[in-house]
Every structure is written in structure tokens, then in C-alpha cells.
């Protein structure tokens, strides 16, 4: 799941060179939207699908009205700053809005299919299996999309050489919109899939945002395989580590390791470009 979250984040960072601080909010929104749809009695898979469409549209709208006004600064540090501030403002606004609508208490989402699978010595709930399969499928889909479609090709071209790409007749704004939409949908998907496993609350997005960024830095910017590998690594480390340390200390340890990593190998474990 960290992979899903991190992929969307890395996608925006890699392609348009900006940070989306609303990414955590997107995760949270995805979880709440699918929670609402399910509570209306919709089928779980269908509601996740609907939620992804809503999140995609929301992402496109955000790009159009909040990010594009700054497009003349693109490529300069002040572009990044403006985007950081605006997306942070968005994140705060979404979080407060959800707080006002749903209240601050923890909500638990009913699992799609109750029961457990016995796998050797481990017991895994059906929900985990379902989330895992859904996650892997969508990661594969995104990978294929970027690799084999024209839009994916355009995205890669823009990431590498924005000027040349727009000279070849690409419309960068449209591609950025699509990227933002896909990224939001992925974050929302991660939120919806994890909601039954962990409970949801309005500020839930920040923690997952944090993990997403650990994964992206660890995996190296612009490397999809790196992000996937790092996502699994962080997941394993976190869950194995909690045997010895409490979860909160684990966070501090991961960050200590991250700062060390940045000192020694700034491009991440698998990255090729130096940030």
C-alpha cells in the first residue's frame, strides 16, 4: 500500500517537479468517499471504482485551478514554493472540511469480505488479501499505462525534457492535469483499501503521506522499480521492527536512517538521478 501512495507522489514529483502536499489529504478523501459510498449500500468494488473516478476529476480540477496559474514560474524554485503553499492550504481545507462533516472520531470501515485465510503459520484476513491483490493489479496497470500508451509516453517525455516535449506539439498542461488526476486516484485507492485495515480519521493522511515520502526518497526519485522495492522494504521493516520497538520510536529510527542515507547516498537506494 505504501507503494500505491508513493507512486502517485513520485509521479507528480518526477513529471512536473512539484510537491503535492495535498497528497495525504487525497488519501484521506479517498477513504472517506468510499466509506460514504459503502455506507449507502453500494458494492465495495463498485464504490472503490466510483471513488477513483471522483478522485481523478478532483485531481484534474485542482491542477486546473490551483496549480496552473503558476505555470509561468515552472522550473524555478518559486514554482515549487507556490505549489507547496497552495497544496498545503488545500490539505488544511480538506482536512477541516472532513472534520466538520464527519466529526473527529475514528471510523471503522466494514471489511469487504470477513474471515481469514490460513497460510502456513500465518493468519491473513480476507480483506488484506483483497487489498493486496487490488493494489498489485493497479500498480501493474499504471506501469503498463506509462510504458505503452501515448499519454504515458508524453508523461515520460515531459519529465525528461519539458521544453523539447512541448516543442514537439505536446500540450504540457493537459498532461499535468492527467498526471495529477491519476496521482489523486492512486492516493484515494490506497486510502480506500487501507480504510478497513486501519481506521480512518480526518488527519489520517499525514502519516501515510510521510510514509510515501520516505519510500520515494529511499527508492530514489524517478525510479518506479525503486519505489516499489522501497515500498515493500519500508512495509517489512516497519512491521518487523514493531516487534522490538513501539511504533512511535520506529518512526524516529526510520528518520534517523533516512538522514544517514541522504548523507551517504542522496539519490536513494535505487535511484539514478541525483535530486
Amino acid at each position, binding site marked *: 500500500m505504501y507503494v500505491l501512495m508513493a507512486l502517485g507522489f513520485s509521479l507528480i514529483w518526477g513529471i512536473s517537479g512539484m510537491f503535492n502536499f495535498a497528497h495525504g489529504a487525497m488519501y484521506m478523501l479517498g477513504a472517506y468517499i468510499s466509506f460514504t459510498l459503502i455506507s449507502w449500500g453500494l458494492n465495495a468494488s463498485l464504490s472503490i471504482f466510483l471513488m477513483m473516478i471522483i478522485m481523478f476529476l478532483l485531481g484534474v480540477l485542482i491542477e486546473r485551478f*490551483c496549480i496552473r496559474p503558476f505555470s509561468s514560474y515552472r522550473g524555478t524554485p518559486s514554482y515549487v514554493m507556490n505549489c507547496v503553499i497552495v497544496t498545503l492550504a488545500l490539505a488544511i481545507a480538506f482536512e*477541516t472540511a472532513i472534520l466538520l462533516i464527519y466529526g473527529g472520531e475514528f471510523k471503522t470501515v466494514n471489511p469487504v469480505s470477513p474471515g481469514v485465510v490460513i497460510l502456513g503459520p500465518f493468519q491473513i484476513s480476507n480483506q488484506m488479501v483483497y487489498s493486496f491483490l487490488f493494489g498489485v493489479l493497479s500498480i501493474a496497470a499504471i506501469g503498463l499505462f506509462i510504458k505503452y500508451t501515448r499519454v504515458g509516453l508524453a508523461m515520460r517525455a515531459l519529465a525528461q525534457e519539458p521544453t523539447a516535449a512541448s516543442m514537439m506539439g505536446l500540450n504540457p498542461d493537459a498532461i499535468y492535469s492527467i498526471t495529477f488526476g491519476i496521482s489523486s486516484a492512486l492516493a484515494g485507492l490506497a486510502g480506500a483499501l487501507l480504510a478497513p485495515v486501519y481506521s480512518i480519521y480526518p488527519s489520517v493522511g499525514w502519516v501515510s503521506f510521510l510514509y510515501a515520502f*520516505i519510500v520515494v526518497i529511499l527508492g530514489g526519485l524517478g525510479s518506479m522499480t525503486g519505489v516499489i522495492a522501497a515500498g515493500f522494504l519500508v512495509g517489512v521493516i516497519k512491521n518487523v521492527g514493531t516487534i522490538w520497538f513501539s511504533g512511535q520510536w520506529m*518512526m*524516529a529510527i526510520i*528518520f534517523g536512517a533516512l538522514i544517514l542515507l541522504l*548523507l551517504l547516498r542522496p539519490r536513494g537506494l535505487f535511484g539514478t538521478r541525483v535530486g
Partner: protein
Amino acid sequence: MTFSFFLKDHINRNVLIALLIVFALTPFVTKNAYFLHLIIVSLMWGVCAASWDLVFGYMGIFHFAQTAFFGVGAYASGLTCLYLAISPWWGILWSSITAGLLSLALSLPTLRLKETYMTLVSLGFVFALFYVISSWTGFTKGENGLWGIPSLYDEVSKVSYYYTILVFFVLSMAVLYAVTKSKYGLALIAIRSSEDSAKSLGVNVTGVKIFIFLISAVLTGVMGWFYAHYILLVTPEILKMDTMISVMAMTVIGGAGSLAGPVLGSFLITFLLEYFRIVGEYRFIIYAAALFFIMMLKPKGIYGGIQNLIGRLKER
């Protein structure tokens, strides 16, 4: 932002002196403790916002660690006073040293890289610090916070605190002003305009960045010290995102890239929040909306707007 500040640098000395006299005389006019408290808080956050702006507006690096420096300053002094029973005045030393060391720990690995790494790593840093402080219950008392920090003055009125913070405020502003006017300030402008050309002209880019970051952290750490001995209670809450968002809102709404802007923003936000308590829940929505509109319409904030107005009036 930066450049226009230096070009249009008509901070009127008379206006400054007049303001200083007004602030110095305020306690003689009103002894209303609540009003004085609001000014104290505004001045305190004003320094934090202005030193954050030194890194954000002048250097062009967005980071989240300002609350970390503030909180660490507060905890450093609070803990040494509690465990070693030393005079709170010595706390300034510990606060500034720990905040400075923290800033080095953060800036040495990350400032060599692109600005964006600082943004992310500082965010993680604050979260990690928050978790350490709130779960290390044996040492920092965890979520309950540090109680019983000794106060600076034994009196009930806030007048002594008022003058203390006023002195520290003026000193901090003088330091910030001196930094922006020194060769480091010029190097900052060079770095902001074009990092590569600055490098090629022999500016030690990383060194300047680390130095500026250090100054900003130490000033904030001292404010943390003041907070600890003024409020007398430090909880991990001050490390939360909310505090950082307030500091950011103060800077951006007041006007980034200037020294007066963040202070203006700090006064504005502190007083508005106190007098419109009813908004409570909606506070962050208002922040968000204000940030959003200022980013869209007037990136220089309120102070930039005032400067424009003065400029236009002078033209007539």
C-alpha cells in the same frame, strides 16, 4: 520578492523609532494584562515568523522545522531547569545551543541537495521529534508536558515579561537585519537569483545556506526559551503541524521576503484569533482561504501591498 525589498528599502528610521517608543510606553498607558499578553505573544511569534522568512523569503527554502527549533529550545531550557535546578536565565544558552545543533544536524545532510529535499526531510524530522518527545515519558513527561518550569519573574503583572520580549525582539530583528545587509545577505540574493552563477563567482553556496539556517534556528530557539519560562508549560503540542501552519500563514499573509511583513502578520493573526474566538473550528479554513488568495493575487502579502501604496502615493 527579495530584490524589490532591497531596492525599495525605505524603512523610515523615524517610523521605526516612533513605533519603538509607542511599544516601550504601552505598559504605562494600559496595565491590562490580557492586552499585554497578546502583544507579548505577537512579538514572540513575530520573531519566529521573521526568522523562518529569512530562510523562506530570502533563501527560497521552504521547511517545516521552525516549530522543531522552537520546541527544542523550550524543552532544552525547561528540562535543564527542572533536572539541574539552574537559573532560568542560563536556559538561553542551552536553548540556543540545542537549536543550533539541531539545525546543523538537519542542514548538513540536506542543504547540499536541492531545496525540495529540505522541505520533505524537515517535515519528517518534526514528526520524528514529536514522536520521540511524546513517547519518551520518563524524560520529557510525554504528552502531559513539562510542568513546573521556573518563571523568570516572581511578579503577577506581565510588565517585566513585556520588556524582556521587547528587548529580545529588537535584538533579534537587529540580527536579522544585519544578516540581510551583510555579505551573507548579498550572497543570499545571488543564490536566489541564480544558484549556478553564484557558485561560479565563488560564493560558497552551501556554507551560506547552512549559516543562515543556523541563525534562523538559534533565534527561534531563544523564542522557545522565552515561551517555556513565560507559559511555564511545554507540551509536544507545540511541535504539531498546526503551529507550523500558523507561522507560515503569518509570514505569507504578512508578506514574505521582508522583515516587517511576518511581524505584521503575527500581530494580525494573533489579535484576530483572540477577538474572533467564535471562529475556532473554522480557523484553519480561514488560514487556507487567506493563503490561497494571497498566493493567487498578491504574493507579497499585506506588507507588499502597503509598500506599493506608499510608492504610488509618492509618485503623485
